[in-house]
């Protein structure tokens, strides 16, 4: 195992957190689970006593040869990524960082993934195991630190994206991967229909593409892989060179595009591959296609229903990233169908009988 640079601030406060959860369970006190508090905009506002995870930080173990790292939830994303970078490894799902306080626990709880998502996989795909604090304040382990493990139900992946509504993520083990040896980013001028057609055509070939976006007449592509294949693909595709920082800015929403004007809200449309542009009354410059078109950022003053109906008709769904207090939709997430909702409620009742974990964060009813 690698010697870790242990920061003096790193510590394990799981016992204290368990005590706090146990008290909340006994007194029926709702908890608002907070890491770096950089993702509070994502989801409905939660009223509750803060359960602070930020002090529960540090890398528990990291063995680059095993491709596994285990971290406490309060560990800052930048600290984790630097530790991995020293060994030329990375979290392949490219989690967005919404400020230096952003934690890995928040990244997994929200389940958000960056531009590499369609090629590498989502946050949940790289979660191997977790230690979770249950409603009764018990610290339990699910999954593990091995690549393959099908013993019991996959509770760890269920926690990814559940936004803390089913339990508190204390520690998380990830599969990590080597950073590709070569990379090249490029931009090509073309219209949206040509771009989507080209991406479908390229997608059927074994090419080293790890990001693809389109905005305002330009197709942006990132190539990553071995020296030879990146060079060959670069020569084949041509175009102008693009700074790799473009993808970080897209990931973290720091591109100019993400500045809203009065009355606009930011929406994320999640659509099946190869979905043509939707017929919506939105200026083309207010739409940013990421994930080869599967994830589209939209700045719009449209009502939620219009957007959601259009997405649903295409087999997708829409999420509002602008909080209601700032003019966004009251329900940030698309409503569930009745049967699916029934089983969500059942699960919530089983794992959080008194509704103490981030109540209402996903949906008003639970």
């Amino acid at each position, binding site marked *: 195992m690698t010697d870790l640079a242990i920061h003096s601030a790193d510590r394990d406060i799981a016992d204290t957190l368990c005590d706090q959860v146990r008290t909340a369970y006994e007194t029926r006190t709702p908890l608002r689970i907070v890491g770096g508090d950089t993702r509070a905009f994502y989801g409905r506002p939660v009223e509750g006593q803060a359960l602070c995870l930020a002090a529960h930080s540090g890398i528990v173990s990291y063995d680059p040869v095993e491709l596994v790292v285990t971290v406490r939830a309060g560990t800052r994303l930048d600290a984790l990524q630097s530790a991995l970078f020293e060994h030329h490894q990375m979290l392949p799902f490219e989690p967005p960082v919404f400020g230096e306080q952003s934690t890995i626990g928040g990244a997994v709880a929200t389940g958000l993934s960056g531009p590499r998502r369609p090629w590498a996989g989502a946050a949940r795909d790289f979660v191997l195991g977790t230690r979770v604090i249950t409603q009764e304040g018990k610290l339990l382990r699910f999954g593990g630190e*091995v690549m393959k493990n*099908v*013993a019991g139900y996959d509770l760890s992946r269920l926690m990814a994206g559940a936004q803390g509504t089913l339990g508190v993520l204390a520690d998380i083990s990830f599969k990590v991967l080597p950073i590709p040896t070569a990379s090249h980013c490029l931009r090509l001028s073309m219209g949206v229909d040509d771009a989507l057609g080209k991406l479908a055509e390229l997608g059927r070939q074994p090419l*080293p593409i790890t990001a693809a976006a389109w905005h305002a007449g330009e197709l942006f592509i990132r190539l990553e*892989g071995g020296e030879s294949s990146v060079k060959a693909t670069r020569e084949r595709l041509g175009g102008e060179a693009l700074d790799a920082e473009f993808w970080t800015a897209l990931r973290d929403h720091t591109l100019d595009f993400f500045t809203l004007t009065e009355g606009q809200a930011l929406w994320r449309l999640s659509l099946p591959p190869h979905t043509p542009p939707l017929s919506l009354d939105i200026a083309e410059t207010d739409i940013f296609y990421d994930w080869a078109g599967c994830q589209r950022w939209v700045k719009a003053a449209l009502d939620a229903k219009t957007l959601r109906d259009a997405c649903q008709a295409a*087999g997708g769904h829409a999420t509002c990233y602008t909080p209601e207090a700032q003019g966004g939709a009251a329900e940030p997430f698309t409503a569930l169908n009745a049967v699916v909702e029934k089983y969500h409620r*059942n699960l919530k009742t089983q794992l959080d009988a008194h509704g103490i974990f981030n109540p209402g964060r996903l949906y008003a009813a639970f």
Partner: protein
Amino acid sequence: MNILFDERLDGELVRRDKHEVLTDLQQAVPSMTLLHREEDLRPFECDGLAAYRVLPMLVALPESLDQVEMLLKRCHALDVPVVTRGAGTGLSGGALPLEQGVLLVMSRFNKIVSVDPDARLARVQPGVRNLAISEAAAPYGLYYAPDPSSQIACSIGGNVAENAGGVHCLKYGLTVHNVLRVDVLTIEGERMTLGAESLDAPGFDLLALMNGSEGMLGVVTEITVKLLPKPETAKVLMASFDDVEKAGRAVGDIIAAGIIPGGLEMMDRLAIKAAEDFVRAGYPLDAEAILLCELDGVEADVDDDCETVRRVLEKAGATQIQQARDELERAKFWAGRKNAFPAVGRMSPDYYCMDGTIPRRELPRVLKGIAALSEQSGLAVANVFHAGDGNMHPLILFDANKEGELALAEDVGGKILELCVAAGGSITGEHGVGREKINQMCSQFQADEISVFHALKAAFDEKRLLNPGKNIPTLARCAEFGAMHVHNNELPHPELPRF
């Protein structure tokens, strides 16, 4: 180990008269094939774990969703357990029938609904064979990545139930990483879609939960899988070692060099001999271990990586390194590995296949432990190993006709799994818990963790009618098994009787 459902340890089942259930189901779903005579039930008495057999009360062979829906509604109303079965190739007894239960066989749902090359998706029914998906996608240069060794026979529905892996999953993931959407019927007969053709869906990730849930949470009726472009080329290197530990270290060295091989497999001396005798794969009989390392991708990158891996293997002390010269030789190298189980089956009247996973660094220690168990028991053990992702398949050789050997093999198997858990691993990497490893679950999980699994189950199937007795043991069983973890020196659930 008593493999049969034991109401004392696995929970009570409602007793129903077979003719009452038969009549009820025949009236409710008259168009559905329903087998009830002993000679018709016999072929369904076991799955791929053939040492364990139970005759089901009835076998249902529906052909339409409406039939499955009605069947489930009636079983739910009558409190009759339902065990779902796909192709019946599972190795952990996940589809072992129940005497008081209906065996729901999904094999007639065998249509590929659609293949969309532009979206790189295929919609398939659960009875479609794993390999048939890749065959349907091949004209577009696409394929379905997870490739369990049984892929010519196993069905995709069973793959979802077990979260099946294969030899390429370090690089391409397990079933859970390659399924986008499943349609499910609940035990109450409700239709539910989990996941989506888009890359995510609102709400909890119930799709991830459904993968590997062993038919305990719902019945999968349709699956949308992701297709990948076929790699331009694949090349395989075979390295021989005079010491198993050296081979184990070489695996780590390859990963440390920043290479993620498409497949990275290891076999020990006994497995090499069995495979060589069976398929003449060209394996070196004097080696203590061989590594098969497949590198796939774009031709130029693969050539670079082959060179890097060759250097790593030389440095790691390989006594011989051979690169398959052509596609024919590559197929031959793999044939030995893919046929390792039947090959071992030729050496011994019976064998018992384990499926533990460990962190790779623990390989030398666990192999020594296995060798010691083999020596103590007098049963030979051949080791086949998905080395890249730490998934071991020790094959314990025995003769079921010899008094006590099956029990001895089970005992050695159980101890091997406990070695894996002690090394920080898991009792099952890809075959599932099923009925086979139900007791070892008590070694891997504490009572409180098992209680959470029961809570999850209750959210979907409160009456515990879907595949009872599989995957998750009762706390009573763990108490009896005696390996329940004692946490902070407090015996959990002291109110439970301990048999």
